[in-house]
């Protein structure tokens, strides 16, 4: 009972958060004051400046300051207070699905799996006392101690190998790379030791391990710390590669990965860590997992199919929202798993929309998009295509540092919109 989170209890009985309720009350009062006739003392007080010298230091927060923030959060403007019914409707604090950041979703997933299975342990650089370089493992060391949350020295190849060895001997390690860029130091252990052993031993030796960490372009860290490894690891048989986009993906896929009996690479995205997403009630369950190898249609549409993974799924949805205003309905598919690739879902969508665009942050050559193009061409959906498949990818360069250059190195929403219109011949 004590392990159940507040959010879950509130979610079950559909109760709003106290802060939201207080905000609603504040805005209701504010609207009422505004609607009173001019000269009402309360109304005058809202804008009154106190005479005399202001005290030193930060100005104290006044009612209006708080209300301004409230209005911003709720998304209402002062003028709208005139209409009482509308105002009340707008400020009404409805029960909302829980907002969880991707970081917290990952943290919860690990926490629950550590609790569920004694064989699971986390090791990596700064995962324990530092709470994780990106704070993904925050609090776990305090809860599980040195035995199960292990800080390693900076020796990727060594600790990745140790993790694989421990997996061979029956444990279920979660090996965190501070970022996947550093996993290249250890890529031999990931591929030669983890991915191939089961096959080489004709099934005798299983390697149940999770390699996880932030992947893809980060912000302002230049070439060596910004690249996508989906194609790298997606290339190798024996590995499973997942690439979550939102909190639910992150939670469900990581839990599945930890429970899997095979090596799974979990490619998180650093830029998504702080982004909050609603997580359904069902998604908060301790038994919630997302099957590896299944894509998800995030938005149905019938004019063009956008296939994407990780952060670019958000870009696709934004582009789809813009295009919807122009009457173009995009079907957005969130791949979730890079390997094994869920081609069936893509094919089914292509059969419906007859147009396909792939969107990814990685480099174009031999990338995820390239693979999807090839698979579509080899499969039955090819005959349903009304236009060539288009890849929207990162620019074929090492990531530059300057912001303007960096922004132009990865696909932006406008690039997706442009490509859709090109494909649809508009």
């Amino acid at each position: 009972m004590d392990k159940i989170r507040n959010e879950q209890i509130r979610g079950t009985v559909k109760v709003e958060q106290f802060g939201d309720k207080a905000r609603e009350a504040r805005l209701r009062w504010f609207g009422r004051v505004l609607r009173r006739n001019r000269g009402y003392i309360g109304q005058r007080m809202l804008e009154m400046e106190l005479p005399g010298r202001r005290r030193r230091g930060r100005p104290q927060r006044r009612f209006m300051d708080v209300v301004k923030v409230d209005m911003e959060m709720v998304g209402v403007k002062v003028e709208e207070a005139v209409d009482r019914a509308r105002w009340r409707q707008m400020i009404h604090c409805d029960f909302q699905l829980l907002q969880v950041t991707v970081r917290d979703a990952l943290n919860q997933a690990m926490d629950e799996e550590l609790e569920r299975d004694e064989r699971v342990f986390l090791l990596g650089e700064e995962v324990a006392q530092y709470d994780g370089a990106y704070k993904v493992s925050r609090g776990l060391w305090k809860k599980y101690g040195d035995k199960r949350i292990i800080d390693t020295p900076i020796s990727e190849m060594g600790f990745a190998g140790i993790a694989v060895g421990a997996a061979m001997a029956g444990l279920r390690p979660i090996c965190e790379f501070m970022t996947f860029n550093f996993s290249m130091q250890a890529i031999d252990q990931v591929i030669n030791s983890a991915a191939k052993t089961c096959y080489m031993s004709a099934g005798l030796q299983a390697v149940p391990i999770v390699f996880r960490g932030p992947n893809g372009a980060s912000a302002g860290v230049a070439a060596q710390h910004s690249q996508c490894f989906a194609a790298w690891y997606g290339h190798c048989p024996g590995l499973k590669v997942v690439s979550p986009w939102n909190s639910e993906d992150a939670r469900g896929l990581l839990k599945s990965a930890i429970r899997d009996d095979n090596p799974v690479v979990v490619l998180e995205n650093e830029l998504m860590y702080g982004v909050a997403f609603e997580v359904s009630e069902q998604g908060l369950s301790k038994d919630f997992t997302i099957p590896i190898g299944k894509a998800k249609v995030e938005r149905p549409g019938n004019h063009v199919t956008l296939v994407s993974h990780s952060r670019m799924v958000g870009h696709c949805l934004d582009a789809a929202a813009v295009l919807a205003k122009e009457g173009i309905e995009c079907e957005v598919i969130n791949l979730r798993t890079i390997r094994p690739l869920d081609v069936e879902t893509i094919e089914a969508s292509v059969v419906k929309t007859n147009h396909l665009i792939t969107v990814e942050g990685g480099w174009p050559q031999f990338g995820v998009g390239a693979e999807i193009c090839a698979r579509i061409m080899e499969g039955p959906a090819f005959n349903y295509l009304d236009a060539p498949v288009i890849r929207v990818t990162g620019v074929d360069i090492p990531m530059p540092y300057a912001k303007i250059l960096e922004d132009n190195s990865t696909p932006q929403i406008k690039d997706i919109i442009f490509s859709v219109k090109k494909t649809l011949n508009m």
Partner: protein
Amino acid sequence: MRKMLSLISSALRLSAGRTSLAVQRLLAAQGEYVDMTLDPDPPQHPKIHPTPVSGTHRVKRDPPSETLAPLVPVDLISVNEAVEPDWTETLRSERSHRDKPVVTGPPANGSASVGPEVILDVSTKDEMLTALANTELLISHPLDGAGDAVVQQAAVSESAITELLVSSAALEAPSPVDGAAGQKAPDRTVWATAQTPALPSAELTPPLTPSSMVRRSRNVDLTRHPESVHSQAGHAAIPEPQPAGSRVVVSARTYADFTPQATFDIKKCDLHKLEEGPPVQAVLTREEGLQYYRTMQIMRRMELKADQLYKQKIIRGFCHLYDGQEACAVGIEAGINLTDHLITAYRAHGYTLTRGGTVREIMAELTGRRGGIAKGKGGSMHMYAKNFYGGNGIVGAQVPLGAGVALACKYQGKNELCVCLYGDGAANQGQIFETYNMASLWKLPCIFICENNRYGMGTSVERAAASTDYYKRGDFIPGLRVDGMDILCVREATKFAADHCRSGKGPIIMELQTYRYHGHSMSDPGISYRTREEIQEVRSKSDPISMLKDRMLNNNMASVEELKEIDVEVRKEIEDAAQFATTDPEPPLEDLCNHIFHNEPPLEVRGTNPWVKLKSVS
């Protein structure tokens, strides 16, 4: 040996003056000795009784033991396996309450069939002790004459002896004597054998040096049915409680041809950050010796066969042969338990064998057949077994893996350890130093073993390493440098290292100095970077198999014929395995995609073209 015999005889003389019902029989059963160093202060020079006393001691000498006449004094009673009537009569009259003295099966070989049996008459405990103090005694069980008997050692404490004497004295009731020696289970009899390895055949028994006859004290093994001995072979000494009413039968085996165990001086290990090293003496029992010999021979023959098959183009790809380094694999395995873990590099055939793989499975894997240990999917470098994690083709990559296995041992709270092997070439890999660091930091129960065969491919150690003291390269990790050509040395060092790990002191490094006779792999003739003379010299001077063989032969622990017999068996086994490996069908094509994942529902796998749809099951 002569000295020993004279010691025994003198001890017997000492006790010969008295007659007693408590006659102690010394049956020097082949291969079974117990240290009965009971007297805290044994006489330095045993007094020789001026005249042997007849009547209490009877000597029966069979023709082959005639040659021993000058060596074996009259008070050593030699009894042939076929117990002669008058002897039995004597026994009956003297010790009518006793069980049959036992023993013996068919001789190991014709010439080694006869050995002396010693009957001691000891009336008092003191006499017994005095006698024993001057002899090497072993309580043992009789052995099957085939020569692969269990070698048991026993230490009998003074109190035990007292007990025996008391019990034997107390027992007066006659018991039937079975005429067929060795058929009757001497269940209530303790067999204590004097270390009088009988020396039936002169050619087989070069004189033992006194240094090789060292007192031992280990497990006590008591009576066992002679017939059960054979099935017991291979088991460690099983202490049995002393049954009530048993008595001491100290005897020389009737066919006691072989020294059951001997102690050897072994090369002292170089130490790094260790106060104390492994012992400089090692005890080898006959049983162990034969087992090591057989395993090493199998390894050697298997590799030579692999060489042959490779040259016939039946084995493909990389093939790294282990011949020359056999002492390492067999010695390490002898120093750890099967429940411990092991991981090695690509020269993996030997370890696959010691970890439980069969020659057939290994050979079939080399030829890529269905019956291979990895069903033909791994090949030479990738073989796995229980608690054996390969076979890793990436030089040095197995070292962190091994440390990970050790981490799992520690995590799971098992008192197990991981032996992690690598070569002198891999010793220069960066990840090894990363692993040293973490293993030491986390006190992982891991034995890092560097098999230094002097060449990493074709680069000699001096050309590759700034420091060739591989046992010191862990810096903060204690290390040992061990003679890797001497199986006893390797075994003792491994035991020492295992104890170190199990005591929670963290990892330890061992450098085994060894040598490979073949080139790095089959594509390397192995002579461009070293001379044929060098190989020849190692072969002739420190071949691990020859070394063990010489030791066993020189100390009368085995006969040439016996070892030859083993060789023949090994050859047959290898031939049989090779036959299997060349005739076993190739893996079925349906197996092509299987085992990509573990415990997964069937998976579709793309073939070489989009129309080829394959299936993978776990």
